[in-house]
């Protein structure tokens, strides 16, 4: 029998240093095993295409209203906040360039990922946690279905694919919001605004944003599923799983952002 890494009854190692420190390292090891299992199972048939499409719909389509609103407001607010600083130097004509770089390189991926971590990550943590404590995951297992593949792999694939799409969408919505602000204050035309926007962006910007948002998407899915799939202690555990999923995903998103920015800047 394969060692079941998700089995909460599996023996834990004896304490080596202290309970807290050992527990931390054990959690890291457990998470590592979880990710490893994802990569082991993702390429092996049967493929759950229907469930993946369903999850893409849940992650992507159902996040659109929130993402649209947030992206739009971010674009307007950032433009309005930047204008006075540039106006001091008589450089408001640089607004489209500044905004495009800020939105595409940093704001769109971060804002989208943080919103998705809150909405999608917590949803996954709570949903899988609830399934775990009500024995629905065990029920799948005894029905000769691989619950990890059906529930976890499909969700991680969905977030990994859909977050980059949502990031692109957020970037366009935010740029549109910024355009409305610039147009109403500086009377810049639509063509002029977007011409400046695209002139300021390089291939590296688009590539790094796509790569970054793919990493963010994987993180949101993996963290949400990990906490939900391994939740315990009844309804309290479900709440904790949802909460931990959001906190851990947000923390990891910032850490990844710092690392990726450093790497990309080395190529700039």
């Amino acid at each position, binding site marked *: *029998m394969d060692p*079941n890494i998700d089995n909460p009854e599996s023996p834990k190692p004896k304490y080596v240093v202290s309970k807290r420190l050992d527990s931390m390292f054990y959690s890291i090891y457990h998470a590592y095993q979880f990710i490893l299992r994802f990569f082991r199972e993702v390429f092996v048939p049967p493929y759950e295409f229907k469930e993946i499409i369903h999850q893409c719909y849940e992650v992507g389509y159902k996040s659109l209203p929130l993402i649209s609103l947030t992206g739009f407001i971010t674009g307007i607010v950032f433009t309005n906040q930047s204008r006075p600083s540039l106006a001091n130097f008589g450089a408001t004509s640089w607004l489209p360039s500044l905004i495009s770089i800020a939105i595409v390189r940093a704001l769109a991926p971060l804002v989208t990922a943080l919103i998705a971590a809150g909405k999608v990550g917590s949803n996954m943590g709570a949903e899988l946690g609830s399934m775990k404590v*009500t*024995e*629905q995951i065990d*029920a799948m297992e*005894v*029905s*000769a279905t*691989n619950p990890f593949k059906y529930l976890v792999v499909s969700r991680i694939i969905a977030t990994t694919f859909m977050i980059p799409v949502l990031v692109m969408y957020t970037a366009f919505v935010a740029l549109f919001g910024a355009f409305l602000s610039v147009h109403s204050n500086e009377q810049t035309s639509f063509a002029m605004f977007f011409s400046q926007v695209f002139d300021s962006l390089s291939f590296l910007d688009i590539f790094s944003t796509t790569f970054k948002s793919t990493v963010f998407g994987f993180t949101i899915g993996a963290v949400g599923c990990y906490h939900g799939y391994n939740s315990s202690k009844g309804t309290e555990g479900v709440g904790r799983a949802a909460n931990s999923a959001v906190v851990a995903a947000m923390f990891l998103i910032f850490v990844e952002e710092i690392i990726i920015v450093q790497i990309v800047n080395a190529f700039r």
Partner: protein
Amino acid sequence: MQQKAIDRNNAVIAIKDLKKSFGELHVLRGVDLEVYQGENLVVLGRSGTGKSVLIKIISGLLYPDAGEVNVLGREVETLNSKDLMELRLKVGFSFQNSALYDSMTVRKNLEFPLVRNSRNLRRKEINVQVERVLEAVGLSQTIEQMPSELSGGQRKRIGIARTLILKPEIMLYDEPTAGLDPITCIEINNLINEVQEKYNTTSIIITHDLTCAKQTGDRIAMLLDGQFAIQGTFDDVFASPDERVQSFYNYNFTK
């Protein structure tokens, strides 16, 4: 109960010296058990004595610390994931809280194991099987309902129907009458007997409800202090002078 044909030479489940602990808590302390083809075995015992742990080990949901668990001729603890999946097709598990997928309708709940394990089945054939198994548990009218719209007894029945759809050879019932009113309990007990007759299953029924034990069990095994202290027919078991057995009986029938 009508005398059934139980093949005493054919043990479909054979457990030897099974041990399982959770930390310092030693739940199963050397369990030996054989369950024969066509038999309904009732496992009785107080809460927390490891009854559910036992059937979770039989279905491969939990791992034993020591001992051998042989189900349909295969050692469960040595099986790889693929072989375990194959074995699980033959072992149905009815959960204490039904464990219905609450985001799916009754139809989707019943289809789920079928679609996942017979991917070439046509829609028409799936519908026929779902309707047939729902009819067997007497709940055809609930097919488009969500689990949250069902009563406790209905949920139990749907849970049993979901396991029956894969036509298992062995049925494991975890507290089938827990939390139900006496009339619904009797209905569930009758359903367990009907399932055994119609599908020719071998069953292990975990319960602490003596009425359920009396109505469904061909044999009773009493789990006390991590071991089967006594086995036999209902009358044999409760004729035992063992104080623990008598107190269990008295509590159930004189409370």
